[in-house]
C-alpha cells in the first residue's frame, strides 16, 4: 500500500523530480570536476544574480497557468530599471525608488492585461507588440546611455554579503509564499481554474477574465520587482538590461513542467527549472567548455526535458 502510494507520488511529481535529478547530477559532476563552483563568494553572487530571473519566472508561471504568455517582460524589465535608476539618480527618497518600478511594471502589465482579457486579443501577439514598442521607445529616449546610481542604493546600503543574502532569502520567501498561495488560497485555485477551462470558470462565477487581467498586472509588478532586485546589485543601470529574460523565464517554466495548454504545473518545478538553467552556463565556464557551445546545450536541455515528458505521456497513452 505505502509503496504503491509512494509510486503514485513519484508519477505525480515525475517532472519536478526528473528536473531535480538532472540538476543533482550536474551539481555532482561539478563537485568532482570543479569544486570551486561551490566557493561561498561566487556562489552567493551567482545566486543573487539569478534572483531576478526566479521572480520573473514565478510571474510567468502564473501567466502560463492562465493559458496565456507574456514575451514583453524583457522590455518591461528595462523600462522599470531605467525609471527606477533615473529616480534614484534624481535623489528621490529610497522608498519611492523601490515602489516606482513595481507600479510602472504593474501599469505596463495592466496594459497587456486589458488588451488580452478586455479585448480578448491573443496574448502572444499583444505582448510581442508591446515588447517591441517598449524596447524601441526606451532605446529612442535613452540612447543606451548608462545611468550612474548614488552609492547608498547598492545592496540597499547593506554590506555586500548581507545584501546578497537578503536578496536570495527574499526571493525564496516570495517563491514559497506564492507556491503556498497557489495551492492553498482560493485566488491561486482561480488561476488554475481560469487556465483549465475559462468558460466553466465563468459559469461557476469565477470571473476568469478579471483573473487573467490581474495575473498580467501581477506579472508586471513582479517584473518591476525583478528589475529592482537587479538594480541594487550594481551602481549602474544598463538600459539594455533584461534582454532575453522572457525566454529564460518561459524556458524555466516549461522545463519545470508547466503545460502551455494552461491549468497544469507547480512553482516548485519552475524553481528547479530556474536553478537548472542557471547552472548550465556557469558549469560550462567551470568545466572550461568553449563558450560557443552554450546556446546549443541550452537548446538541447529544453528539448530533452520536453522530449522526456512526451515519451512518458506517449507510453501512458499506449498503456491505457
Amino acid at each position, binding site marked *: 500500500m505505502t509503496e504503491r502510494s509512494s509510486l503514485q507520488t513519484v508519477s505525480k511529481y515525475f517532472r519536478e523530480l526528473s528536473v531535480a535529478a538532472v540538476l543533482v547530477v550536474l551539481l555532482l559532476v561539478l563537485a568532482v570536476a*570543479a569544486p570551486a563552483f561551490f566557493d561561498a*563568494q*561566487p556562489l552567493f553572487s551567482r545566486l543573487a*544574480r539569478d534572483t531576478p530571473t526566479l521572480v520573473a519566472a514565478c510571474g510567468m508561471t502564473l501567466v502560463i497557468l492562465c493559458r496565456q504568455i507574456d514575451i514583453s517582460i524583457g522590455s518591461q524589465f528595462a523600462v522599470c530599471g531605467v525609471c527606477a535608476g533615473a529616480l534614484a539618480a534624481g535623489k528621490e527618497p529610497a522608498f519611492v525608488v523601490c515602489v516606482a518600478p513595481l507600479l510602472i511594471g504593474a501599469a505596463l502589465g495592466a496594459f497587456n492585461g486589458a488588451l488580452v482579457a478586455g479585448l480578448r486579443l491573443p496574448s502572444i501577439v499583444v505582448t510581442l507588440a508591446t515588447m517591441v514598442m517598449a524596447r*524601441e521607445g526606451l532605446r529612442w529616449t535613452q540612447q*543606451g546611455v*548608462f545611468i550612474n546610481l548614488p552609492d547608498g542604493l547598492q545592496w540597499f546600503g547593506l554590506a555586500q554579503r548581507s545584501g546578497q543574502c537578503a536578496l536570495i532569502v527574499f526571493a525564496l520567501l516570495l517563491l514559497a509564499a506564492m507556491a503556498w498561495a497557489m495551492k492553498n488560497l482560493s485566488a491561486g485555485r482561480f488561476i488554475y481554474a481560469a487556465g483549465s477551462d475559462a468558460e466553466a470558470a465563468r459559469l461557476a462565477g469565477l470571473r476568469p477574465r478579471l483573473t487573467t487581467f490581474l495575473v498580467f498586472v501581477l506579472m508586471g509588478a513582479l517584473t518591476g520587482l525583478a528589475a529592482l532586485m537587479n538594480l541594487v546589485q550594481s551602481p549602474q543601470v544598463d538600459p539594455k*538590461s533584461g534582454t532575453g529574460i522572457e525566454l529564460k523565464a518561459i524556458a524555466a517554466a516549461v522545463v519545470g513542467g508547466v503545460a502551455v495548454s494552461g491549468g497544469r504545473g507547480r512553482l516548485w518545478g519552475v524553481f528547479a527549472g530556474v536553478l537548472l538553467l542557471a547552472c548550465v552556463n556557469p558549469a560550462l*565556464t567551470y568545466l572550461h567548455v568553449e563558450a560557443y557551445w552554450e546556446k546549443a546545450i541550452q537548446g538541447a536541455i529544453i528539448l530533452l526535458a520536453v522530449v522526456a515528458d512526451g515519451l512518458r505521456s506517449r507510453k501512458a497513452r499506449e498503456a491505457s
Partner: protein
Amino acid sequence: MKQSFLLVLFLSLALGSGCQKQSDSSGGKKLTIALMPKSKGNAYFISCKAGADEAVKEMGADLIFDGPTDPDPAKQNEIVENWITLGVDVIAVACENKEGISTALKKARAKGIKVVTFDSDANSDARDFFVNQATPEGIAQTLMDEAARLTNEEGEFAIITASLTAANMNEWRKHIEARLREKYPKMKLVDTKPCDDLKDKAQTEATNLLSANPNLKLIMAICSPAVPGAAEAVKQAGKTGTVKVIGLGLPSENRKYVHEGVTQSVILWKTTDLGYLTIKVAADVTGGKLKSGDTTYHAGRLGDLEVKGDSIILGKPFIFNNENIDQFDF
C-alpha cells in the same frame, strides 16, 4: 480572391508611380551627410554624434544619423541602399561587418556617392577614405601591451567580448592572440566569454571566470558595457587590485571604478573628435578639398592631421587612467 486582385492592382500602381518619378534628380543645394553607427542606442556612438553635430553646425550641412537597432550587417546594408536611393551626397559608416556592407558601399560609389568609413573599416575598394582612430592591430596591440605591463608579462587572463559573432571584435581577438604569441610567451589566455553587449551578463560571466580560474591576473573587456560589468564583478569578489581590469569603454561609464582602483585603464580615443573628424572628411571629400594622394589634411579645430594612403590618422588610441580620466566628460 478579391484581395489578391487588389494586391496586383496596388503593385502595378506602385510601379507606375515609380516610373513617372524616375526623372526627378536630387536637388542638392545643401550637403547631405549620412552617418551610420554599428547600432543605435549605443553610448559610444552617441558621443561620436556629439562631435558630428558640432562639425555639421560649423559648416552648415545636413546630417542624417541612423543605423540598425541591433548590430546586424543585413540591416546596415539595407539602410545604406535606402540612402543611395534617397540620394544623399556622402555616406559615413562604422562597419559592423566588412564584407556584409562592402557590396552596398561599392554600389554607392558606383552611383557617385562618396563613402567614408570610421571606427571600423570596410574593404578598401568600397570607400574613399577611412578615418582611422585606430586600426584593429593598433587597438589589439595597445590592449595587449597594456595588459602585459599591468601583469608584468606573465599569468592568466580572460577576454569578455560582446558576442562570438561580432566581426570587429573577432578581428581584435585575432590580433590580440597574434600579439600574445609573438611577444608575451609567459601569458596565457584562459577563456573568452560573450556578454551579448549586456553589462549584467558581463558581470555574471566575470564572476564565474574569477572563481573558475583562481589564478586569473587580468580581465580584458573589449566591448564597452563589459568593462564596468567586469569591474563590478572583481569588486564584489573582493579581488580589487589582485585582478586587474582593462578594456575599451567610455570614461563616463568607468570613472567610478578607475578611481576605486578596480579598473586600471580604459582604452579609447576622443570619440567626439572622431565624430567631428569623420564629418569634416566626409564634407571635404565631396567638396574635393581632400583627394587621394594628399599627405596632410587640415581638420578644423583638430589642426593638421597625417594622411596615410587612404586613411586619415586621428592618433593612437588613448589610455584613460586614474590621473587623466577626470579631464574627459564623454
